[in-house]
């Protein structure tokens, strides 16, 4: 019985605070607050709302009701720095970003580096430079990593433990290859006229190493190293 009495007292208190609103008045207050917050270009405080609503309109109760009503919806009623506003629900923020795809062509240097990685993998940056005969900028390798066509495979068991690079499955998919072993060899390149047939006898083209497993002279990248490398490659190419 005591608890029932308490409930009555609370109800009376609420009623007093709400200026003895009828359900219809309460609904109308909700509608007005909804419209004001929707149309406002800035978040509004309870005081701002009170100033614009008919005098004596209860603000707090309708605000609470609205907040609850919108909590599960695509738009939420939130409080920012003590002021109220509508905001897109956090889990739907993806809707508010659109991807603009830019078609880009690889530079000649990047194409060469990619080709050398494909044929000579696993290959270190120093080895790429030796084959190309020029220094390879970090930007070129970053760009190739960004294409998703190359990846860091491991570290060469050699002084300085340099990172080894290889191609990815995305590389094979993009270039329509089943395995890197399908890359044309010396004779095929000659046959296609891409290599001079009078090229010196000592000239050879390696058999690319395809598998994901590391070769004998490779160590795995440690998890931390790997992340660090990735973070590093996010910088604008130097």
């Amino acid at each position, binding site marked *: 019985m005591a608890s029932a009495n308490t409930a009555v007292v609370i109800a009376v208190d609420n009623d007093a605070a709400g200026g003895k609103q009828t359900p219809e008045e309460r609904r109308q207050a909700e509608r007005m607050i909804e*419209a004001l917050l*929707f*149309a*406002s*270009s*800035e978040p509004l405080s309870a005081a701002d709302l009170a100033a614009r609503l008919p005098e004596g309109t209860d603000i707090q109760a309708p605000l609470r009701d609205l907040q609850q009503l919108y909590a599960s919806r695509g738009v939420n009623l939130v409080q920012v720095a003590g002021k109220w*506003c*509508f*905001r*897109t629900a956090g889990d739907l923020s993806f809707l*508010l*970003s*659109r*991807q*603009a*795809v*830019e*078609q*880009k*062509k*690889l530079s*000649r240097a990047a*194409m*060469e580096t*990619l*080709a*050398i990685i*494909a*044929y000579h993998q696993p290959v270190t940056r120093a080895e790429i430079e030796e*084959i*190309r*005969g020029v220094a390879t900028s970090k930007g070129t390798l970053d760009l190739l990593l*960004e*294409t998703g*066509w190359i990846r860091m495979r491991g570290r060469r068991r050699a002084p300085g433990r340099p990172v080894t690079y290889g191609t990815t499955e995305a590389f094979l998919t*993009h*270039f*329509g*290859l089943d395995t890197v072993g399908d*890359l*044309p060899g010396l004779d095929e*390149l000659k046959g*296609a006229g*891409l*290599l*001079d047939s009078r*090229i*010196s006898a000592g*000239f050879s*083209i390696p058999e690319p190493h395809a598998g994901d497993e590391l070769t004998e002279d490779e160590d795995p990248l440690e998890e931390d190293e790997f992340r660090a490398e990735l973070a590093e490659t996010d910088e604008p190419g130097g």
Partner: protein
Amino acid sequence: MTEPHAGQAEMWETYRPLAPSSDEPALVVDVDGFEGPLDLLLSLARTQKVDLTRISILALAEQYLAFIEEVRKLRLEVAADYLVMAAWLAYLKSRLLLPEEEDEEPTGEELAAALAFRLQRLEAMREAAARLANSNRLGRDVFARGAPEPIEIVRKSEFSATLYDLLTAYAARRQEMAALAVVHMKRRQVWSLNEAREMLSRLVGRIADWTPLHVFLSPYLTPEMRASVTASAFGASLELVREGRILLRQTEPFAPLYVRDRVAVAPVQSPSPEAGNG
């Protein structure tokens, strides 16, 4: 009615086809309030207090003619189109009153109906305009979201290359490098400024006395290197003088250059080659 603003008046204030004369008496305000004869007719029709569809065009014509007559009696100028309408209404009136001739087209009744139609249509458009003006208008009665949330554009690059591009790039570079590997370029024989500097710094410091420059250079002065060695040594020695590390002396033009370490001989007061030993 608000005061017309200069310039904007024509655009935004009530449009008046009749230019009011400046010296017209108060009565003219009534005439002036009408937008042409049709507007005047519509106003007169309203005084009949009946539905426009049941209006008496004959009565309306008479009202109009009486109105114009009144205005003219007051010797007020009436714009031409009001007079044209008056003439036409007078004609219409006669057509409605006199018995119709057989072959006349259109009949007086048809002309009256056409006029009634125009009045109804103007009235309808005025009402439509009022309804439109009073409808819920964006930015006045109804509002869009005050703080729309922008769509963020995330740029993503997509690369494309063909296998042919890949193979061409590879083959071209490998072939270029293979070609480079077999070419033996003849190295050009020069003695660089740096080499001369290094040699001079190394040797001069050990000899405290004035020494002819060519003595230091003699091991390098092969026939094909003579010019390069002499030029570089001279340049390097001037640089070292400027840095205060050596002293340089020449007794006359084209005479041999003497060099001496500056620090080593600092106590000696007379820096002359003839001054002999230290």
